[in-house]
């Protein structure tokens, strides 16, 4: 077992390596969250989280209310889905996903005459047992909103003998452009603190720590001001560096502890949640509202009026872009998520999901890539990799298809695909892509062995 966690009073000096991309947050960081008007057609993919897809409980033609359960969890590592609007189920079947593939989804047509008010009642969380609380979180369909969309209740289901001493709230938001967590911290600090308190007390943690990058001074100030007397909450300002928000880096920065490879934060007695996740939990227990909407930053030089939008899940990306003034002529690429870890969007009619923190329209300026040239062994990638891997070696080995060697000698499976290496390579080598190929291959091999 790990040694007991020390809870130092201040940040312990940050993590090593990483990169400093220009953060471009000035476009949206001061724009209040706006509610996106309801559109007419919504698509809720059944597998928008990590784990088993949800199981539909409605069929074509059913009328649904906003917040009504439309799909139940498909297993333990799975969550419920709720209707984002009041309206009618159009069909349950394959729909286009943002990467262009077709996936099972429930399509809903909004009732144009409905007020789309959400009606619900608060839940008495204080009397819930831990198991019941976990069940509620699963029922609320809450997944990690920090990007991975990992079902939240799974994180809270601790194996025998594990204890959480600290709830760490991830407000780093280190991806360029994105400001959703930032705005939530500024505008809804009470909800955040309330949600945190719920989770803390249920998990039995001693302390809540909120890590925020120093480029959000207003958020830090607002949180600090909102902390009630006696609340065991600390707000820790962090160095501005990518990937500060990766949970293991965050833990290293704040506690000076390395989460061992292959282990989870809970193994060092920490639970990590994104700001958005905690706010969603607060909303559920305060208002009874399951996860049916989220804040999305629409930004990038390709849109005229960047914005932080509170949008119902399932809204087509096109609607968000239209609200932000539409795509400019020079747009070359639209990305879902941040520009470092996010993926290109192939179809603008695809919906936003629980994990979509941003829609970015990028121009040739950002998407241009240096011509690929031979690796000059400059070591920039090595010095960028926060996991202390050897990306230059990966690229070389992958080109020679020596995937096994990559895993055996160089721990390629530890790579989180943060993209720092590719970002920093002056020779334009798509290192992460090579790594993904290798990992896919290795995974398929282990699967075959089984």
């Amino acid at each position, binding site marked *: 077992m790990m040694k007991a966690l020390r809870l130092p009073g201040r940040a312990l000096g940050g993590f090593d390596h990483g990169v400093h*991309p220009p953060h471009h947050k000035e476009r949206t960081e001061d724009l209040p969250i706006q509610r996106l008007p309801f559109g007419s057609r919504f698509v809720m993919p059944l597998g928008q989280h990590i784990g088993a897809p949800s199981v539909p409980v409605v069929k074509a033609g059913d009328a649904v209310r906003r917040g009504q359960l439309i799909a139940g969890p498909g297993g333990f590592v799975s969550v419920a889905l709720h209707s984002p609007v009041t309206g009618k189920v159009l069909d349950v079947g394959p729909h286009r996903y943002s990467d*262009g593939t077709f996936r099972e989804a429930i399509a809903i047509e909004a009732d144009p005459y409905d007020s789309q008010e959400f009606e619900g009642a608060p839940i008495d969380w204080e009397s819930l047992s831990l198991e019941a609380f976990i069940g509620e979180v699963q029922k609320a369909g809450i997944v990690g909103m920090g990007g991975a969309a990992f079902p939240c209740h799974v994180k809270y289901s601790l194996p025998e003998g594990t204890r959480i001493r600290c709830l760490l709230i991830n407000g780093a938001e280190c991806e*360029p452009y994105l400001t959703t967590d930032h705005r939530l911290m500024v505008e809804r600090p009470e909800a955040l603190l309330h949600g945190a308190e719920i989770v803390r007390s249920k998990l039995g943690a001693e302390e809540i720590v909120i890590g925020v990058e120093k480029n959000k001074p207003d958020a830090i100030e607002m949180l600090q001001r909102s902390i009630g007397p006696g609340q065991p909450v600390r707000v820790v300002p962090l160095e501005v560096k990518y990937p500060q928000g990766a949970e*293991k880096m965050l833990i290293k920065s704040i506690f000076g502890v*390395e*989460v*061992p*490879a*292959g*282990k989870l934060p809970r193994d060092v007695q920490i639970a990590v949640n994104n700001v958005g996740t905690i706010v969603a939990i607060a909303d559920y227990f305060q208002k009874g509202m399951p996860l049916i909407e989220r804040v999305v930053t629409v930004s990038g030089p390709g849109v005229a009026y960047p914005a932080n939008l509170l949008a119902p899940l399932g809204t087509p990306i*096109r609607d968000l872009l*239209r609200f932000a003034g*539409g*795509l400019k002529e020079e*747009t070359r*690429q639209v*990305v879902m998520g941040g*520009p*470092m*870890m*996010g*993926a*290109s*969007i*192939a179809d*603008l009619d695809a919906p936003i999901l629980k994990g979509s923190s941003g829609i970015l329209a990028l121009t040739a300026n950002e*998407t*241009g*890539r*240096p*011509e690929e*040239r*031979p*690796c*000059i*062994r*400059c*070591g920039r990638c*090595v*010095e960028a990799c*926060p*996991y*202390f*891997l*050897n990306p*230059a*070696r990966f690229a070389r080995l992958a080109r020679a298809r020596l995937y096994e060697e990559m895993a055996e000698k*160089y*721990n390629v499976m*530890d790579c989180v695909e943060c*993209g720092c290496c*590719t*970002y*920093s*390579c*002056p*020779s334009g080598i*798509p290192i*992460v*892509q090579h790594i993904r190929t290798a990992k896919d291959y290795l995974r398929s091999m282990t699967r075959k062995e089984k």
Partner: protein
Amino acid sequence: MTQKDPKLLIQPGPQLRQEMTTPVVMRDVWYALTPATLAGIWFFGLGAFLVLLASIAGAVLVEWFFSPQEKRRYFLGDGSAILTGWLLGLTLPPALPMWMAFIGGAVAIGLGKTIWGGLGGNLFNPALVGRAFLLATFPIAMTTWTAPGDFFSIPSSVFALPLMQGEVDALTQASPLGLMKFAHKETGFFDLLFGNTSGSLGETSGLLLILGGVYLWWRRDLDWRIPVGILAAAMVFSSILFLIDPDKYPGPIFSALSGGMLLGAIYMATDPVTSPLTPKGTWIFAIGIGLLVILIRVFGGFPEGMMYAILLMNAVTPLIDRYTQPRVFGRGLDSK
């Protein structure tokens, strides 16, 4: 659909890239070298400039000749061949016959780079492979150093016919290192710093070399650990020797400023291709060079050991790289 979609690119992340590209890095090194080169030409005259040009020509021609037709522009476009010829030229005696400098440049690229698979494949510093070849091939011409002279008078040896010897008519003068090694005489600090000594083009003006190095460091083009490690190791080693016998052994300042030390430490040992990848490896590499330089200079058969020190450590680099893999985050910390 109300709005016509622009044609959207689908590309894997990360979408952002930092601005530095390999050709820009190489060009930065050009800029950094320019002041010291101009100063060198000013001191040694046009002849030295011709030698430099010949060496660059040799390098570029071979690079052109051996690159596949469709990739020629691309190969030459990264500017590394010119850099190789340039750096080689900076280490040559100013009165070297041009044909020798040309052969040096050709060998540098031919044996030092092309054979290894081009940019990034070579494991030895190409410019120094060229120089080592020249030194072993034409040892006398390569160790005939002329004093700084008139700007417009070109030593006739520069124009020696191919394959033929050049008569050195300029004033030959032992370089500071030669004086040190064979006569135990130190050259003054300011002469070393400002470059009014005999030697090669690129080693005379220490101050400008350092300025260029600072520029490169500022542009993040070179690994500061290498020059710092080399100079520190060399100075510590020579301080120890100096304390033992100040009459016989050079002091640390002289060691750091004389000969190819600065040019080698700032521009050649730092060649990204042939230096280790990891920071720890880089320190080992740098300290190894620092110690070898002094070892060769003081106890070896040559007045200058920079070139051999770098080449020898180049040969060790694959081993260094292999044994200095960084500790992967979250691995191997059971003891903690």
